[in-house]
């Protein structure tokens, strides 16, 4: 699912943005070896302070698995101010109908191959559909995207080949960077949807994402029934521990349950405590 985060709604999605900056650090510093600034495991630069829009893809567990950053080309942007070497000394394109896409990446460690819901190809397509539909709605006709050759190949193979390039590819860290032109047209969006089999609306509402993030941050423990200790619930607690002891599959698990019983024994009645100690 896609959420667009800009400076109008970012106060609601602080943890999503932090996750996104961490993903960018892993990709651009780690995998691609670009000379980027990473602090506390997060990659941020001055363009993040210029109120860009981030197109962010989340998986069903609320993890950031893909992202892209959009800026107007009429104002400061990376091709004009940082990646100008790609342009071979030429001035950059500047138009209200053209946006720049940078820091486009997906989480190759978390995602798989193939075309399933959690694949690199799916998330790449989802981010592109989200970005193009968002741009289209803003009256924007084309995008110039700074990408690496791997991403370029992925785009070509997923019904989303750039129609041209500006300047020429230049070495950047372990790989090269290039500026690709893509139209934000109905035809292109349809072609990506066809390839990736993404039919429905890719955007999630802010409320949905907020709920998902709240669910994600709630502590989870595997293999056990959640309980809320309350006054006079000693009987329920006893039943719970009996169930846990019965379900235990190894001596280690039994030890773990016994330790838990001792840890909360203060909340148990004497009768329950004794009953549980006798339980084998």
């Amino acid at each position, binding site marked *: 699912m896609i959420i667009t985060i800009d400076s109008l709604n970012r106060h609601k999605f602080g943890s999503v943005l932090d996750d996104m900056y961490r993903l960018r650090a892993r990709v651009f510093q780690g995998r691609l070896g670009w000379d980027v600034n990473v602090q506390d495991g997060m990659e941020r630069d001055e363009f993040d302070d210029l*109120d860009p829009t981030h197109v962010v893809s989340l998986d069903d567990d609320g993890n950031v698995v893909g992202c892209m950053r959009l800026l107007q080309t*009429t104002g400061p942007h990376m091709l004009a101010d940082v990646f100008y070497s790609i342009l071979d000394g030429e001035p950059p394109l500047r138009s209200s109908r053209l946006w720049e896409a940078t820091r486009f990446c997906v989480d190759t460690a978390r995602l798989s191959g193939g075309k399933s819901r959690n694949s690199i190809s799916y998330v790449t397509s989802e981010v592109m559909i989200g970005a193009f539909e968002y741009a289209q709605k803003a009256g924007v006709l084309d995008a110039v995207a700074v990408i690496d050759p791997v991403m370029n190949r992925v785009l070509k193979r997923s019904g989303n080949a750039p*129609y041209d390039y500006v300047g020429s590819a230049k070495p950047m860290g372990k790989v090269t960077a290039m500026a690709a032109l893509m139209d934000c047209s109905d035809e292109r969006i349809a072609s990506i949807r066809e390839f990736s089999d993404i039919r429905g609306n890719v955007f999630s509402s802010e409320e949905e994402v907020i709920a998902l993030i709240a669910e994600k941050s709630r502590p989870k423990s595997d293999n056990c029934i959640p309980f809320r200790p309350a006054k006079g619930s000693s009987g329920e607690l006893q039943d719970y521990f009996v169930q846990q002891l019965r379900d235990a599959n190894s001596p280690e698990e039994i030890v773990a349950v016994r330790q838990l019983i001792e840890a909360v024994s203060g909340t148990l009645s004497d009768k329950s405590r004794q009953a549980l100690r006798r339980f084998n």
Partner: protein
Amino acid sequence: MKLIDLSSVQNVHQHAGSYLDELCQLLEFDYASYATINPVSGDVQGYANYPDAWKLHYAKQSYHNLDPTLTQSAKSIAPVDWGCFEQNTKFTKVFKDAHDFGISDRGLTVPVRGPYGDCGLLSVTRDCSPVEWEKLKKSVIGDLQASAVHMHDNVTKTGVLARAISMPALSSREVEILQWVAAGKSQQDIGDILSISHRTVEVHLRSGREKLGALSTPQAVGRAIGLNLIMPG
């Protein structure tokens, strides 16, 4: 779209009001306004074709410090529909008053970012049904983007000296394509001649046109010839 060309008039400030009037007439809006915030001083400079009584009231109440269509829209890269401010108490306060002056709270603001951290905001409003509004938005959003950048570039580039020394930075591809346009070639022809897609031709042409501050391609050609960037066809 035919509008007053603000880059060809002597005094932008005198014509800004008529530009907004024409914009409203062409794109079917009730009112339009343009504001730019000085990145250094924070001063707001603006034009609007709202009724004078509302402009006066707005200024008296210092609503420009409160109005989220001004204070918030600059944070977006995309046009901001005022619908997103529905829950905003500052918005409600300003537009409750606006209503008394016959001005609708249905509107949108197009933010334009300039190269020096400057920002311009073109706002339009129209009293109509939600369905009509969505339809209108979809059909004019591109023209609004182009008008917003035209107005912003010309307002911020005022002063005879600033204009005399400003030389648009066109790339050789943009110049090359304008030269072929001057020679009477179509976009398709130019794509074939240069072995590039017609979409590439278009994207460079649009960029060159906006850099020259021109509203149409023939005008861009004329201006490029005037600046000795290309030869007459």
